[in-house]
């Protein structure tokens, strides 16, 4: 029935409209969160820049020989992957791209006969790998969209401890780099051992006088390297958070646009259905009126007469079988 179709369409449009309201709200929230996340990335930069600078100075002074966090192991038997994804979905390809990148890298290491370990950050990463039966050494979650330094410290200290104990020979970190609002790229980079900062780098334009150290350079470095690791992980987590919001904003924007299209299309179909129904109704009314008008003008042509005619042809049959039939020619 045409009216029924119209009602169904109206209901669909309504539901699409309310979905659109939700996606639109999420889009706006994500957009404001990106700004905040970017500010946090910027706010964290001075610390990591300074700490890198200090390490460079220490390296110039010859510190760090034999520091376990700096030395690359000769034989790598176990590679640990830290996968940083989000706690929530609805962020387009954000989670799946970083997770798949990590999985590929992990399988590549296995193909070379190495042991692998897995640490997940974010519920989505945890869910993905658990579902596929990977053994997860540790998982952290609950802060993916707004990580604090404490969160980074928890992850970093877990990893560095295992690394120093020799359980892992290399730690790699898979996260999404925030290149710009439009571009975020899933990357996989070595986290531990820490990159040895080039000692023979071109001297900075500042004074190159020798530094005084208190306590000794090696002692300072021992305290500094764990902090440096934390700062690097924190930077990665902030980048990942900014990327998450950017991806979510994009995903929600396209969902909102799509809802708009859908509403336009459905409205068009619904209007056509309504017009069809109206047209059909008019046709019926016109047809009915026409029939009535014709009937009023020419009584002999009406059904009653036909029946009457039939009675005339077979009077006995009608009399015996339909005794109550009104006689038209009475």
């Amino acid at each position, binding site marked *: 029935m045409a009216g029924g179709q119209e009602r169904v369409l109206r209901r669909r449009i309504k539901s699409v409209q309310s979905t659109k309201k939700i996606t639109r709200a999420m889009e706006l929230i994500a957009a404001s969160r990106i700004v905040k996340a970017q500010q946090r990335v910027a706010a964290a930069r001075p*610390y990591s820049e300074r700490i890198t600078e*200090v390490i460079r*100075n220490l390296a110039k002074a010859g510190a760090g020989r034999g520091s376990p966090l700096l030395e690359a192991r000769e034989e790598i038997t176990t590679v640990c992957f830290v996968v940083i994804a989000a706690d929530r979905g609805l962020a387009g390809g954000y989670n799946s791209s970083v997770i798949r990148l990590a999985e590929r890298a992990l399988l590549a290491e296995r193909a070379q006969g190495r042991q692998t370990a897995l640490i997940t950050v974010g519920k989505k990463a945890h869910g993905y790998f658990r579902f596929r039966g990977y053994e997860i050494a540790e998982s952290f979650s609950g802060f993916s969209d707004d990580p604090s*330094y404490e969160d980074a410290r928890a992850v970093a200290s877990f990893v560095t401890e295992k690394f120093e104990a020799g359980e892992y020979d290399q730690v790699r970190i898979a996260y999404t780099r925030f290149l710009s609002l439009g571009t975020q790229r899933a990357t996989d980079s070595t986290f531990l051992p820490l990159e040895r900062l080039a000692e023979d780098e071109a001297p900075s334009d500042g004074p190159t006088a020798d*530094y*005084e*150290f*208190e306590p000794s350079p090696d002692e*300072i470095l021992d305290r500094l390297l764990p902090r440096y690791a934390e700062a690097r992980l924190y930077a990665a987590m902030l980048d990942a958070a900014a990327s998450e919001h950017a991806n979510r904003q994009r995903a929600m924007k396209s969902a909102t646009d799509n809802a708009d299209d859908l509403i336009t299309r459905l409205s068009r179909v619904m209007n056509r259905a309504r017009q069809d129904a109206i047209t059909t109704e008019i046709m019926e009314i016109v047809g009915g009126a026409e029939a009535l008008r014709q009937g009023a003008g020419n009584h002999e042509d009406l059904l009653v007469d036909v029946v009457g005619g039939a009675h005339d042809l077979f009077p006995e049959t009608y009399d015996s079988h339909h005794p109550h039939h009104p006689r038209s020619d009475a």
Partner: protein
Amino acid sequence: MSLEVQVVSPERILWTGDAERVITRTAGGGGEIAFLTGHAPFVGALDIGVTRVLPAGGGEELAVAVHGGFVEVSGDQVSILSDVAELADDIDVSRAQAALDRLQGTTPTEDDAEEVELALRRAQARLDAAQRSS
């Protein structure tokens, strides 16, 4: 001539400005060390304690409770890097006092003796910083 001082935590810059003098305490029992303009390049690891910054052109001394960290001095720039640093104004004195009292009341077991000791020193540093600035 004054020092350019930055007090930086991993999450943000806590304080930045010009100062006449910065006093802090380095780890390893070296005692307190003061930086004035023209100090030789210096890198140090900080103890738990109070770092004091005397702003240029007078004004109140700024006290920062620093729970470990590093100081770098080069060319009249002083950077205090600390993963946990609190400006005296941000310190909740009653909370720090409560923590101190609670910690002094406990007898540390062998396992957590180190932790309790550190927590004690942190609480003390907070109180010192708060008192110094008020």
